[in-house]
């Protein structure tokens, strides 16, 4: 379990996150939505232990995140950020292999190389494996980064959990790959995985989230199963838009019409 206790974060006088307490169970897909500036990206940066100057506690299975060494953490916690550029030419498979760095001392083992191949296959990137990363489109780059992030925590740890954080991973992606990204995340997670993502598209969030969190002004104003919490009144409060809700003809899940 990933537990957040009384989390406060401010930049100067400006409070970004305001007394957040929440628990994330393994095995579920936790997705966060909210308007720009609601603090969701900052929240991901704090729970993934990138930012440390906060008040309150972030507990990885009861252990204070601030007390876990970065090196140790990197073996079971991976983060996919918005976009990553390279200044130097590098092959796609070399970029993906960087994800295995926390797991080998000097040279990658056979197993590391095999994991890279499996990840390339999972993201349908085999044909791009030998290409120069710099020449790829924005969407292709994002898929390569996703493959790299998954290789970092490819294997379920012998004991304890692995943690996957997705910080607005769907930018630059077309509809097909948006769906692919989240269904891969769903099949990747298991009972030993904590999966938390920030997503912009509310309908995509409803479709894939098992637990949905609505952020507004640095607070979580609603959380729970999407079918029960998504109501026009909540959407009016959070996004300030008037909406109608219909049910998806196949899945029966709510669909928001703006």
């Amino acid at each position, binding site marked *: 379990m990933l537990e957040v206790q009384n989390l406060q974060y401010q930049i100067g006088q400006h409070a970004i996150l305001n007394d957040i307490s929440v628990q994330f169970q393994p095995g579920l897909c936790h997705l966060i939505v909210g308007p720009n500036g609601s603090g969701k990206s900052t929240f991901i940066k704090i729970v*993934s232990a*990138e930012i440390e100057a906060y008040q309150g506690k972030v507990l990885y299975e009861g252990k204070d995140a601030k007390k876990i060494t*970065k*090196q*140790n*953490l*990197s*073996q079971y*916690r*991976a*983060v996919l*950020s918005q976009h*990553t*550029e*390279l*200044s*130097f*030419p*590098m*092959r796609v498979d*070399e*970029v993906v292999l*960087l*994800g295995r*760095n*926390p797991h080998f001392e*000097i040279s990658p083992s056979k197993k590391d190389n095999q994991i890279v191949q499996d990840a390339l296959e999972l993201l349908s990137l085999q044909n791009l494996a030998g290409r120069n990363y*710099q020449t790829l489109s924005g969407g292709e780059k994002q898929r390569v980064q996703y493959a790299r992030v998954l290789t*970092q925590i490819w294997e379920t740890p012998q004991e304890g959990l692995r943690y996957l954080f997705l910080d607005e991973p769907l930018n630059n992606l077309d509809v097909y790959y948006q769906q692919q990204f989240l269904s891969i995340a769903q099949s990747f997670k298991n009972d030993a995985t904590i999966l938390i993502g920030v997503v912009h598209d509310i309908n995509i969030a409803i479709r894939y989230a098992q637990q949905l969190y609505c952020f507004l002004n640095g607070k979580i104003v609603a959380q729970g199963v999407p079918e029960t919490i998504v109501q026009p009144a909540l959407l009016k409060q959070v996004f300030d838009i008037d909406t109608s809700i219909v049910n998806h003809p196949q899945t029966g899940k709510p669909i928001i019409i703006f």
Partner: protein
Amino acid sequence: MAPKSSLFFIVLTALLIVMLLIAIAFGAVSILPSEMWSALNHWFTGKEPATIYESVFIQLRLPRVLLCAITGAILAVSGVLMQGLFRNPVVEPGLVGTSAGAAFGASIVFSLSPFMSPSFKSVLGPFMVPLFAFVGGLAATYLVYSIAKDKKHISILSLLLVGMAMNAIGLSGVGLMTYIARDPQARSITFWNLGTFSGANWFQVFVTGMMAAVCFWLAQRQAKKLNVLLLGDQEAGHLGVDVKKLKTNILILNTAMVSVATAFVGVIAFMGLIVPHVLRLLIGSDHKKLIPASILMGALLLTIADVGARLLLAPAELPIGIITSIVGAPLYIFLLKKFQLNQTN
């Protein structure tokens, strides 16, 4: 990739050995292989050199060629490290103030040397130049780095602009020292600005070689982390690299070896730019290969440049810095242009 790159290393090593032999043989006087052999024999058995050629070989040519090769390797590795650190292909030690700061530090020692007591000079003297060069180089690099950096990012434009200003400060410092120095000291200072190996001796080879060996070894140990840093500070942090510590280590390593090289042979521009660029095209961006390959290629290219410097106007000599600048500056402009285009795309 693997067989291709091992072949690459073999070819590069062979070329370097051939070039070193050529560099030893040719110059103001030519030295035959048989003379090299007998000179080495006499040297190792502790006998006096038999001919003037043998002593030219032992006392002048050999240290010069070795110092040149070591310096080339240092500048090339330093270029790889700096570019990896700043994640930018247009950075090299000459452009961010390291060389100018080191030259300034060394010039202080040179112009003050007439005022030092003889006993002080004989004990600490030989170490004063490298030490002051190191302090000067480190101070200049650190200043450039911290001025150019805003909260998170380090903009390449401000880095180059601040570096330019730092170069101006360093070189005007050298100018001032030249102005107040006495004649023989002033001449030694002038040499640096253009770079020269004509004064090479075994002491310099020893100090630079030791420094290079230690720094190359330490640099190779950081190669894996430098690879991860290619993804950026944030991603490297997620992959467990202590980015701040890595950057500090690289900066110190780099400054140490560049400063020592600069203290003895002067400012040799653009070597740190050319070698990494060519190598990335040939063998890719993996630092585990880039660092050893740049040792070989840096040594090779600077040896070629030095042979050119000696032969083009023989028996007179061209400062080597002029040759590297003539070749390097156009490449630098080309890279800047290309990098600019990449960024606007």
